[in-house]
């Protein structure tokens, strides 16, 4: 009984020494992983799902982003062409629109710190989404976590992380619209009406559709709207 008690006392003393050693170790070299956010920025992966930015030159007005959006947050605004505007009151940042974009015009950014004054301002119009986002940056240091056997640590690099990511172009072959079954064509000319790039016209003499391959962007709007489903997208060699 007495020996047991003594052993316990020694154990307690050992614990005291342990806690003092640990405290001094932490006081000199703390293992903390705090990022001093406005002055430092965490290095996010390139596929970080932040604010969405639409590149004006690449957009072919195919509406795919608006169709795929599960939250119905994308509304198309018509100017010279049709451009997506994003309603951030609805957006759930799933980035399906970015994934569905056939030309890589919609791009993810690493901007996650956005503030709006009113609910109305959260509905970004196409004129706003197609401009590169303006960010007021206080940070000069980029912080990255490094994980090894000893645990977590921070690696600080004195450089600014580029927030708008330069995404690789999507690996899709160029596709254009073509009429697979001209016999079944009703001649309703809906495709001519819908085409945003004026690539489809009707040859009255031959009585058939003429699709200009160099003008067609492969957006697929005519394919979706054809009542007889005779139009198809075909890869161009």
């Amino acid at each position, binding site marked *: 009984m007495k020996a047991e008690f003594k052993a316990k006392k020694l154990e307690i003393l050992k614990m005291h020494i342990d*806690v003092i050693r640990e*405290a*001094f170790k*932490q006081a000199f070299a703390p*293992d*903390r992983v*705090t990022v*001093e956010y406005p002055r430092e920025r965490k290095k996010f992966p390139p596929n970080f799902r932040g604010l969405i930015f639409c590149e004006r030159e690449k957009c072919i007005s195919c509406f795919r982003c608006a169709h795929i959006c599960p939250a119905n947050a994308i509304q198309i605004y018509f100017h010279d062409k049709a451009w997506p505007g994003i309603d951030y009151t609805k957006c759930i940042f799933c980035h399906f629109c970015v994934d569905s974009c056939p030309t890589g015009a919609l791009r993810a950014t690493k901007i996650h710190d956005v503030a709006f004054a009113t609910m109305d301002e959260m509905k970004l119009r196409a004129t706003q989404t197609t401009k590169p986002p303006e960010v007021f940056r206080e940070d000069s240091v980029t912080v990255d976590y490094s994980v090894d056997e000893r645990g977590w640590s921070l690696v600080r690099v004195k450089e600014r992380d580029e927030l708008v990511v330069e995404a690789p172009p999507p690996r899709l072959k160029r596709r254009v619209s073509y009429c697979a079954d001209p016999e079944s064509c009703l001649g309703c000319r809906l495709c001519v009406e819908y085409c945003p790039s004026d690539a489809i016209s009707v040859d009255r003499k031959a009585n058939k559709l003429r699709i200009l391959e160099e003008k067609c962007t492969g957006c697929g709007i005519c394919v979706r709207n054809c009542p007889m489903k005779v139009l198809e997208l075909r890869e161009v060699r």
Partner: protein
Amino acid sequence: MNMLEFAMQVFRANMMDIPLINPIVEELMSVPWLNLVVALILWRPFFAVVVMPGLVVIMLYLLYIIWFERKLTARIQWRVGPLEVFRPLRGAIQALADGLRYFFQESIVHREAHRPYFVQLPILAFIPVLLPIALIPAGNVVGIKTPYAIPLFIALLSLIPITIIAIGWASNSRFAFIGSVREALMYVAYEIPFIIAAISMIYLYGSADPYVAVEKQTIPGALLNPVACLVFLISMLMATSRLPFEIPEADQEIAFGPFVEYSGMLFGLVMVLAYEKLYLMSLLFTILFLAGWSGPQLAVLGDINAPLWLVVKTLIVISILSIVRSMYARYRIDQALRFGFSWILAFSIIALAIGVVLGYEGGI
């Protein structure tokens, strides 16, 4: 005019001699009226009480220790701590900003309080804090020179808990009452071992005179009597209600105990009481265990060498001590009392025995 000349004569007879600022002092002494102020500041008793180990250094120390303690605790707990007030020094003047805020905040005196005592006591509590400073010598910079400085110092220190208990009583609130009763309990737990540890060192040096104590420490007292050193340190933690024994102030249960009703400047005054007490006790610790003001002397600094060494050693002791806050959880009242009356008391008696044996026939 005759009176002023007499005062000037008294000041000049006992002035600090600092070769570094001597030319400036000579220049200022030729200016009428200003020379009286300069002579007063450099008058040794005044300098000891108001400037170097005294009031000015206490204020600077308070600025430093509050920031340092918060920062160190934050570091050990993987936080950042105060940061935004003066970023280049990582929030170093946070305590000054807090003090300014207290200064302009309304001090509310609630209806149930005993109004005169409630307002007076935080200010009265400064008497036992500042009086001991007059007794602590630093080389030849000394307020009151007496061979009984150490017992007097301890006696004045023992007055501080009484003011704290009175503060709790005057607040007339249940948290304050619980806090002051706890303060009284802790007081009996640490005071006896603390005094015995100090007496053991007095026995060891054979005198209660700090000059003799410092002179005899060719080996620091902490090595001569380590048991007394340990007892002194632990009772210091208990006396200043620091974390393992933070029972009277217990933030989480009784919300700063005796000081719960205070706000504004009055809170600023009572909040720093424990820190000031820590400073005083560390001064005594430095003199008894760390060879006081002795250290390598710089000829340029002249008389200011001794107080500088004393303050630097004291600050180092306090800085190391403040790490304890982040290591331990709080003891229960009964555990702390048992600890004080069993282990610490026993150790203090062992320390007394060591002191008596080593100090046999007039000290070492």
